[in-house]
């Protein structure tokens, strides 16, 4: 057992830090306030550096970056608050096309996605189905050699800046739900697609997407007809490798320490000299070390070629739930001052803590809710009976 990162990974960390110092600007971070957690400039720079193709598994023909180094990359991106949501989406999309796609899709979409020129997005969730993703109702019906698609998707994040949507559709409504699904890679400029913004409590913008008699050639199909669930399973597998999200709290903790040291309160000690504040800061730092241990563990497993599963659920569950708790603690710590948003010139550090407080809840919802992850831990780790159909 040896939890120390190899020297090579530490050297890589320095390289990533140098890269971010050069390419990540305060403007890029601030620009995400329009709701799009994506920066075209940064995305292209990451792709140019070879880290996007690097993150695609070697057995699929990707760069096969060592999972420990990939973990370090994701850690640094998150510690620096880099708007890089599109990176994971691109890596998963490419991986799925390389595993299931035909020659046409490989030639058409993969090079553009890998260069960072084109973006993908996920069209799994619908107005009526989220956790029960296999209950998707968006219909794809045969039309001669091609298909006609009708339906709607909810939470198609990044669709307004993306070129392709990975669309989960129902091709056979008369068989058990998992057996009547088919995936398509759909160009978002295909006639019949409408994208409407969905605003959120956080700064993040998502989309509802609508598909009205969208005509598509069969070459856009990904995987077998009615084999969509198998494709979905590989999506979840690849997502695990590039999930990230294990380090949401450090920027909030740093901001909280800054506030605790500098705030002046009449007739009272500085917050940093207040026991409750000190204890909560330390507790949050401990949680971060737990997250780091989980992250390095799953990376090490992947690096040894071990396919982990439930460990990913545990990591996400712990990271998002503790992040929510930290945000609430530090918002409370600041009192009324903490409520000021970045639009107020007096907001502490541009309202960073306040913004994270509004963002935090979604991390326990998207990419599998905390309840779904608890189910997976109960079944997959503890071996308890399945509690749902």
């Amino acid at each position, binding site marked *: 057992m040896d939890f120390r990162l190899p020297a090579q990974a530490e050297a890589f960390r320095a390289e990533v830090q140098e890269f971010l110092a050069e390419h990540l600007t305060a403007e890029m971070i601030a620009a995400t306030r329009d709701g799009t957690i994506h920066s075209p400039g940064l995305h292209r720079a990451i792709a140019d550096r070879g880290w996007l193709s690097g993150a695609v598994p070697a057995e699929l023909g990707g760069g096969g970056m060592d999972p420990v180094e990939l973990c370090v990359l994701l850690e640094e991106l998150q510690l620096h608050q880099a708007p890089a949501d599109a990176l994971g989406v691109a890596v998963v999309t490419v991986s799925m096309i390389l595993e299931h796609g035909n020659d046409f899709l490989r030639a058409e979409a993969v090079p553009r996605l890998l260069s960072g020129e084109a973006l993908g997005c996920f069209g799994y969730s619908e107005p009526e189905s989220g956790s029960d993703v296999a209950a998707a109702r968006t219909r794809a019906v045969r039309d001669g050699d091609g298909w006609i698609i009708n339906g709607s998707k909810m939470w198609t994040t990044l669709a307004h800046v993306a070129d392709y949507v990975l669309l989960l559709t129902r091709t056979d409504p008369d068989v058990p739900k998992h057996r009547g699904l088919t995936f398509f890679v759909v160009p978002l400029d295909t006639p019949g697609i409408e994208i409407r913004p969905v605003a959120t409590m956080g700064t993040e913008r998502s989309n509802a997407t609508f598909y009205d008699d969208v005509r598509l050639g069969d070459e856009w199909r990904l995987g077998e007809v009615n084999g969509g669930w198998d494709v979905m399973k590989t999506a979840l597998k690849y997502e695990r490798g590039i999930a990230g999200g294990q380090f949401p709290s450090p920027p909030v903790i740093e901001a909280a320490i800054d506030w605790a040291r500098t705030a002046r309160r009449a007739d009272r000690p500085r917050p940093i000299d207040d026991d409750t504040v000190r204890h909560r800061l330390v507790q949050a730092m401990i949680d971060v*070390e737990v997250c780091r241990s989980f992250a390095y563990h799953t990376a090490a497993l992947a690096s040894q070629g071990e396919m982990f599963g439930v460990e990913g659920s545990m990591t996400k569950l712990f990271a998002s739930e503790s992040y929510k708790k930290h945000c609430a603690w530090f918002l409370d710590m600041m009192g009324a001052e903490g409520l000021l948003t970045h639009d107020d010139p007096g907001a502490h550090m541009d309202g960073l803590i306040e913004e994270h407080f509004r963002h935090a809840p979604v991390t326990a919802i998207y990419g599998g809710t905390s309840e779904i992850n608890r189910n997976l831990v109960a079944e997959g780790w503890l071996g308890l009976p399945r509690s749902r159909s």
Partner: protein
Amino acid sequence: MRTRYSEDQQAVSEAFGELFARESTAEAVRAAEAGCGFDRGLWDKLALAGAPGMAAPATDGGGGASLVDLAVVVHEWGRRIASVPLVEHAVVARLLCTGAGRSAPDGLREAVVSGELVATLALRPAAAGGTARLVPAGAVADVVAGLRDGDLVLGRGEPPGQARPNTADLPLADRDLSDAVILATGGSARGAFDAALTEWKALMSVAYAGLATEVLAMGVAYVKQRHQFGVPVGSFQAVQHGLADAATRAEGARLLAFRAACAVDAANAGADRLASMALLFSAESARFASDRVLQYHGGYGYSAEYDVQLYYRRAAAWLLQLGEPASEIARLSDAEFGPKVGAA
């Protein structure tokens, strides 16, 4: 980087896992509780297996193992909440083989490394007058290392053989260190003691992870076989989610604890911080796990007959031997933020 046991560690884990499962049954733990909290028979078997001095240098008759290797054994010790002061003893054995500790009186080091004498660490400095209060294994240890007026001292004496009655029936007792010999003074005393304490924290955090693992296994087995409303109670999602949260924290605790032990082995600058954090988190996780498992046993969990109560009491007590958790957090925050400036 390797976050699973090596083959050797796996073999050690299995061998000691079997030994503890065989020798430290719930009956054995109860029998020790009825006495002074010490299982002499188990201690002798561990000594035979080389466990007490396992992580002492081979040149001193020890096993030459790393702290992480020792932690693999301690994890199994924690799983079976075995009634022997393995962690305190192992830490003192290492202390006596390094720098300041080497000045121990003739023959003592060998006797501790072999396990012939039982040693312990007074986790808190002796009070004025030289008495160390509520020393872990103080009731049974032949040798007590600790701090007295800033000096690192080693006391040798007849153990009282009787514990002060306590929540977890641990062999806690006061020990008089006024006659104890001085091993080191000043900065080197503090340094040696702190190093031992850091090792204790890292090892106890691993022990706590073991405790949490075992109590969860117990809980899972119970909720699978206990039926209410015609179904196993383990099929209720409220029960599943409580156990899933506990399992998640327990696994996080296990990873952080072993990571801390690795950092101690590598003499990383942040090892002390990590060990302290690991201890606080594992203790909390073990408490949470034993609380959930007791709850999901219903009334039987509260009965003396079931084993979960043995774990529940130790989950609280092990950490408190060191003092209030709040002081440990305060120590961490002093290191992070500087000492507190006096309140207004």
